[in-house]
């Protein structure tokens, strides 16, 4: 048997729960601080405006591109490479009195008429300012609804203390992932929002596996303290946690490297989320459940036997 990790005895995770809590609080405060100072680098989906991605035959000189655009009265354009030196992304804020959908075509014309050789249109996006605001609102709402639904489901399946623990962990993961995006001013677009919700799903996955074991052990081991039970459960599930995080990180790294520039934000958010989520299912979720006073009594009376336990297994 080849094993990544083998514990001879139970690892004392909860011994470090205090410093871990401080560490988490520090990260959260830090994230909130950078969010309140820098907020997020909102992508076009949320700010509105026009984005033009063009492909050049030769590596493009950004200074020349900027100069050409300034001549065509687009001096305020943000010009940067996108993916490779042949691709250039031009972004413009919404303008008063000018129809946004016209700007894209005008920028493209300006570049095609200048002396850059062949210039291909790769993508033009125009988003009206109101649409962006709505998207941001809907996105925030989606995350809150997701958290509430999960709170209800986990409460029903487990116990409210565990449910609270898992929701704390999720909020922790989302805030820290947002914090990293804010600190490094990574662009926050719709795919990142989708990734955040996927992080919610993933991190919860991890937490539930641990909680399931905690519940089982509370029922099996009559005498242990809650800390003991949590430590044992975490130890028993640790290799699974590491392996699943590992395989997920494999595919995400592959997505980050090969998936192209459009998917970078998505992959980045999930990579951060998975690191933080793995940590939080150990320290945030379990230790807050302990702090909320979880005990054996909470697990025993509710005879929520596993569904279909009295029937013959179908699998």
């Amino acid at each position, binding site marked *: 048997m080849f094993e990544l990790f083998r514990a001879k005895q139970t690892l004392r995770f909860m011994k470090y729960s205090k410093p871990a809590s401080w560490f988490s609080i520090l990260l959260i405060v830090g994230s909130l601080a950078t969010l309140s100072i820098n907020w997020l680098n909102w992508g076009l989906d949320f700010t509105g405006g026009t984005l033009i991605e063009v492909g050049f035959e030769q590596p493009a000189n950004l200074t020349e591109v900027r100069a050409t655009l300034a001549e065509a009265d687009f001096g305020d354009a943000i010009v940067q490479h996108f993916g490779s030196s042949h691709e250039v992304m031009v972004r413009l804020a919404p303008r008063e009195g000018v129809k946004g959908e016209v700007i894209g*075509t005008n920028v493209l014309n300006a570049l095609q008429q200048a002396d850059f050789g062949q210039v291909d249109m790769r993508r033009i996006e125009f988003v009206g300012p109101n649409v962006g605001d709505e998207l941001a609102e809907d996105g925030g709402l989606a995350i809150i609804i997701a958290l509430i639904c999960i709170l209800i489901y986990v409460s029903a399946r487990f116990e409210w203390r565990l449910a609270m623990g898992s929701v704390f962990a999720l909020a922790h993961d989302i805030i820290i992932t947002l914090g990293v995006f804010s600190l490094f001013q990574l662009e926050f677009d719709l795919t990142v929002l989708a990734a955040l919700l*996927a992080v919610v799903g993933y991190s919860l996955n991890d937490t539930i596996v641990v909680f399931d074991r905690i519940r089982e052990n509370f029922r099996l081991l009559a005498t242990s303290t809650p800390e003991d039970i949590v430590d044992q459960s975490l130890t028993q599930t640790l290799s699974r946690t590491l392996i699943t995080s590992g395989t997920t*990180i494999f595919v995400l790294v592959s997505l980050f490297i090969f998936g*192209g520039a459009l998917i970078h934000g998505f992959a980045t958010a999930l990579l951060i989320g998975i690191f933080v989520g793995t940590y939080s299912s150990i320290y945030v979720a379990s230790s807050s459940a302990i702090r909320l006073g979880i005990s054996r009594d909470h697990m025993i009376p509710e005879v929520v036997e596993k569904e279909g336990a009295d029937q013959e297994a179908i699998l």
Partner: protein
Amino acid sequence: MLNKYPMWKYVLLGFIVLISLLYAAPNLYGEDPAIQVSATRGAKVELATLDKVQSILEQAGISPKSAALENGQILVRLKTSEDQLVARENISSSLGDGFVTALNLAPSTPAWLEAIGGGPLKLGLDLRGGVHFLMEVDMDEAVVKAQEQMVQDLRSDLREEKIRFRGIRKDSSTTGVLLRFTDQDTLDKAVDFLKPRNAGFEFTDKVEKDEYVLTIAMTELKLKSIKEDALQQNLSILRNRVNELGVAEPLVQRQGIDRIVVELPGIQDTARAKEILGATATLEFHPVDSVTDVNDALAGRLPSSSVIYKERNGRPVVVKKQIILTGNHIVDAQSSADEYGRPQVNISLDSKGGSKMSRFTKNNIGKPMATLFIEYLPTGKKKANGKLEIKKREEIANVATIQAQLGRSFRITGLDNAAEAHNLALLLRAGALIAPIQIVEERTIGPSLGEQNIDNGIKAMTYGMLAVILFMFVYYRKFGVVANTALLFNIVMIIGVMSMIPGATLTLPGIAGIVLTVGMAVDANVLIFERIREELRAGKSVQKAIHEGYANAFSTIADANITTLITAIILFAVGTGPIKGFAVTLAIGIATSMFTSIFGTRAIVNAVWGGRNNIKKLSI
């Protein structure tokens, strides 16, 4: 005996494997460059058209793979994309007006697969290139127009009824109309008269200084129906125009209460698309010139007061230049059936239009009247002064005999069938656009970017999967091979299911969703295998360990996956476009991965190891 599946479970598994493979199979066949010929108003695609297309191709020296008439469209499959361009050039110039020739990629799915509903995955715009518009209907304008309409109608109604009022104006603070009277009696009379005629309005009166003010406001319900009508009207007009563009598989769909999504795959020239979508149309009612003979008119003997227009089937009609009424007086037009089930179109005019119509029809009972539809379409070319060249297209939509003196609402009968009635109502409504629309979001993806996105997605998936497969093999040995088999089959199943569901489209975030599923799908197997290892360590027998491993891991796996499914559903509900695509693949991936990694692997494990009591060690 432990760990033995009954035969029916294998049969079921085999059946599901087969179905998935079958529906995933069309994706292996690729696509043919093709040309799609469809008819616009005024023409019909017939067998004769097909013959003509074939002879055009022959003349151009192109031998197509196939050419067939299906669902009123001609689909010509070609061997190369060079052929495709030449063929389109020739067909569109030779067939002329009335036909739209569009470039298309037709899936070369074999006929037997197509017969059972098989077809390749539908790709989102970010993968195939094209343009996406989000348009917003100006609802404020729709309400203001309805208010103005009310003012006009109420004024003429009250005048007709000889109820005197001091003034009438639209109330800008609410969605209603203010009527001022000199005394309470007249106000009451007005209320008694108007109330039964105006359902959907709320009447309130108050005394202001020495005036008696009556407020007639639209109810919430009425307001909602006005907005709904404005949206529906725009929706049907856009559908019509999109068909004119000749795009293969366009999408026109409402989104929320005031938005419309238009997706045009393969279109690069967004300027032209926007012009056509924004084209204006109008209607005119003309008296038919029944004195002049049509053949004389065609021969040039046409009185200066008349003109010749053509009907949609090409039949010429001589009409007088005199305009009875223009389309902007049309408030509504609906197709329905009369008491005998015959199709008809009910038309409502505003008060001005009503009195014009009434005046004209009074002296012309028994005479025919023609409805002329005029559309201003940009040709896509520019005039010398840089302005866009606009083409005016006129066509007689209908000729009807005036049966009686007509008023504000009347109907056109004598239509051939319900479809014609529906079409006519659509045209009549198009003449009177209630609410303007504007583009609030536009995304154009070039074809090269689309292809690159597909390449990137496939590359990311392949390498990610290879890493996972390698790891699982090294770590779990034979059981790893079992998990990998399930993983590969999971991919086939996702593709099969996505190809099967009509509404599912694959987008770039959707590919990311599949890639993510690959990473997370093995989780179920990791949970099971770790559990089996634990049971073995606890000294249980091999068979018992396998059994308990699966049994104990099941509820954990179910809980973990259901919560992820919740997030996928929420994403689907709030997301748009590509994000919806992500949610769909994520949800399908969760379902299929649970099936393959629990049921699928167990079937293999049971077949290989199950029921054998001589096994001392497991390769796990």
